[in-house]
């Protein structure tokens, strides 16, 4: 099933993303290991730091559900094979832009 | 591991013996279906059914048995529910029917309705878990292997006699 995420090489820049447990909203892990609905706040990680962050996320069940790493550019922009999916997760459904994040509706 | 029967913890001296083990006392041994059938006669009185086992294979032995365990390997394998119903309703088994393996709180209600009367649960709070699970629903539509009066029966009996027209 396509819910299996692609494998990423250790040197590929990544961001840890998950769902907020109480609201279900898309969230990104920040450098201080908090969770933000804003992708701009997300930490860009490579190598072991990304593995550590994901392990922490998996232990943070009360706040974040089903964490995984997604591919980003070194600047934190969505990148790679799942660019459409992750853009939709970040921004909202393409058919209903008024329901996305830009509507101030996290 | 707590064994809950009739709403309370009970102890049981029987344990499962794998096919290559020799039990000191066959009366205290729970064995596989294959071993029970192979032994024939009246050697064992307890058996453990695995999900793929055919419960109807117990038909010739059913009167001698007083403990049947049904193993649940995980949440997703529901074959044990059919096995229980067949034992209780098809074969008329009246002895202890024990759920073992992954006995999960949210399946206990379905297990009880399917005919299980004992639950082996790997949790110190097993007693409360079973009590809570069995009190969550006070109504059920279908007849099953337990003695719940179904909604269909209750509705029917709640009606004044002159409106009953059960012509079957």
């Amino acid at each position, binding site marked *: 099933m396509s819910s299996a995420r692609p494998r990423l090489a250790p040197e590929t820049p990544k961001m840890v993303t998950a769902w907020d447990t109480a609201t279900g909203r898309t969230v990104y892990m920040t450098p201080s290991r908090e969770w933000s609905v804003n992708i701009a706040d997300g930490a860009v990680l490579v190598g072991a730091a990304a593995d550590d962050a994901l392990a922490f996320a998996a232990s943070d069940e009360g706040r974040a559900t089903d964490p995984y790493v997604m591919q980003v550019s070194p600047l934190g922009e969505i990148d790679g094979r799942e660019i459409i999916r992750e853009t939709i997760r970040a921004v909202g459904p393409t058919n209903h832009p008024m329901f996305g994040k830009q509507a101030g509706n996290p | 591991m707590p064994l809950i029967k009739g709403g309370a913890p009970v102890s049981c001296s029987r344990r499962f013996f794998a096919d290559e083990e020799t039990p000191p006392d066959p009366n205290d041994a729970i064995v596989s279906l294959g071993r029970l059938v192979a032994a024939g006669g009246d050697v064992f009185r307890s058996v453990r059914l695995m999900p793929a086992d055919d419960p109807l294979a117990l038909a010739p032995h059913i009167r001698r048995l007083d403990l049947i365990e049904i193993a649940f390997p995980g949440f997703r394998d529901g074959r044990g529910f059919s096995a229980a119903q067949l034992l209780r309703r098809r074969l008329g088994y009246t002895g202890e029917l024990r759920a073992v393996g992954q006995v999960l709180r949210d399946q206990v209600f379905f297990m009880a309705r399917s005919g299980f009367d004992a639950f082996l649960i790997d949790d110190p709070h097993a007693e409360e878990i079973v009590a809570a699970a069995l009190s969550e629903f006070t109504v059920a539509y279908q007849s099953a292997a337990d003695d719940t009066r179904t909604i269909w029966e209750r509705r029917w009996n709640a009606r004044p006699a002159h409106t009953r*027209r059960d012509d079957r």
Partner: protein
Amino acid sequence: MYRYDEFDEALVRERAAQFRGQVARRLSGALKEDAFKPLRLMNGVYLQLHAYMLRVAIPYGQLDPAKLRQLAMIADRYDKGYGHFTTRQNIQYNWIRLADMPDVLDALADVEMHAIQTSGNCIRNVTSDHLAGAAADEIEDPRPWCEIIRQWSTLHPEFSFLPRKFKIAVTAAETDRAAVRVHDIGLHIRRNGDGEIGFEVIVGGGQGRTPHVGVTIRDWIAKAELLSYLEAIMRVYNRFGRRDNKYKARIKILVNELGPEAFAEAVDTEYAAQGVHEAVLLPQGEIDRITEYFASPDLPERPARSVTFEAARAADPALDRWARVNLRRHRTPGYTSAYISLKSQGEAPGDMTGDQMRVAADIAEQFGFGDIRVAHEQDLVLPHLAIDDLPEVHRRLRDAGLAASNAGLASDLIACPGLDYCNLSNARSISVGNAIQAVFEDPEFEERVGPLHINISGCINACGHHHVGHIGVLGVDKKGEEYYQITFGGRADEKAAIGDIIGPALKGDDVAPALRRVIAAYLDLRKGPGEKFIDAYTRLGPAPFKEALYAVD
């Protein structure tokens, strides 16, 4: 319509209370997601791309004004003002917070609704003909048996942890509007040689990865035996259905691997072995009690031809078109059934706002005898309307943006939520659907093309029923790009068939232009306006349509 008594209500309330406890345990951290997931799934709660999604059961698609208004309230208060009607006659909400779920379930229980068994490996919501009780071509109303099956399957002690999900559909009309041949079990209400009414039993239909048209294992079974016979089928499936591979776990695989005859024999053996005390006997009085709820509304006598309506439609081309396309024949002269299309150009198919739901509820209350249905085509239906009232009904629908005149035509397409919402998706369904709709923007052209079912799924799970679309569109992912595989020749009706895969998948932007060429080819090739797309395809085979699909403009 069925009304809950204290027992039905108790069960739904108890289930809502149980889930409140489970959600509290999850939010407090006492339950981990791994343990919580199967529990939330048993209550229709999924975690989708953006948020938790709640799928609410609408048994056999039956609504009334109070229910629809409550659905509107939930959309406005707990969601973002809209809901999505599905091919399972259910409604899904896309944005509900987990913390709010228990309150939503309570609000549903207030109007005799629930989310029980809308997901998980259990017997799902029973579906039926959306024109039941109104259609001119049905033997009798199938809804009482749908309700009986709903009750029988609710928290079934033996069949709640099946190898895979299980879908049952019931129809009673020769024209099958409930797609019973592509369900795990399809029940077709029929008369036997003695004129007695019973059920033809069809098993093993289904879509997804390995689509199958179901096979009849019993030509006819008496009503009194139905539930016991269903238990026999379910038991054979529960015991012998495959559990080693999720993709091979549906009953269609078991039926296919055993062969239909051997499967039927296994069911018959199990059925014959049932003792009297095992039979599921429903007292006749209980059947009567349930049936009474579905008595036809009291339809005052009306002239078969309505002068008011004829005059209004002569003066208003929009009303005329809507009436020509969206109405279906009612069994009572002077009445009609009308589609409320949820497929306006550019909208997400099946989506409806809270305000629109209230408009539909008001219309149903004032003109429609309080009866509203969800069709599996993701539209609503008002089954009983007096023809005299149509001008006013149409005016109100139009004012609410609900008067799209396309029922059964190309732009009335089916589309799952796809990659805009769904966590399992490969590609978007809504955007490609909107692009296809635009091909048929000119209503005269669309009417000229005639009846055409275009069904779109965002992945092989086939929630958008692409296998049984006259034209099917399936989203596939090719190295991160959205592609779409096209099938032709599927159908969901009494001549059910799985569509043929035509060739390599097309890029998203190429789908609508390619289908425009296919339609042009069809218009050229058809014998006349009476030959539908599906019939022309059946007559001519794939070649000319394939050529048009891959031609370069």
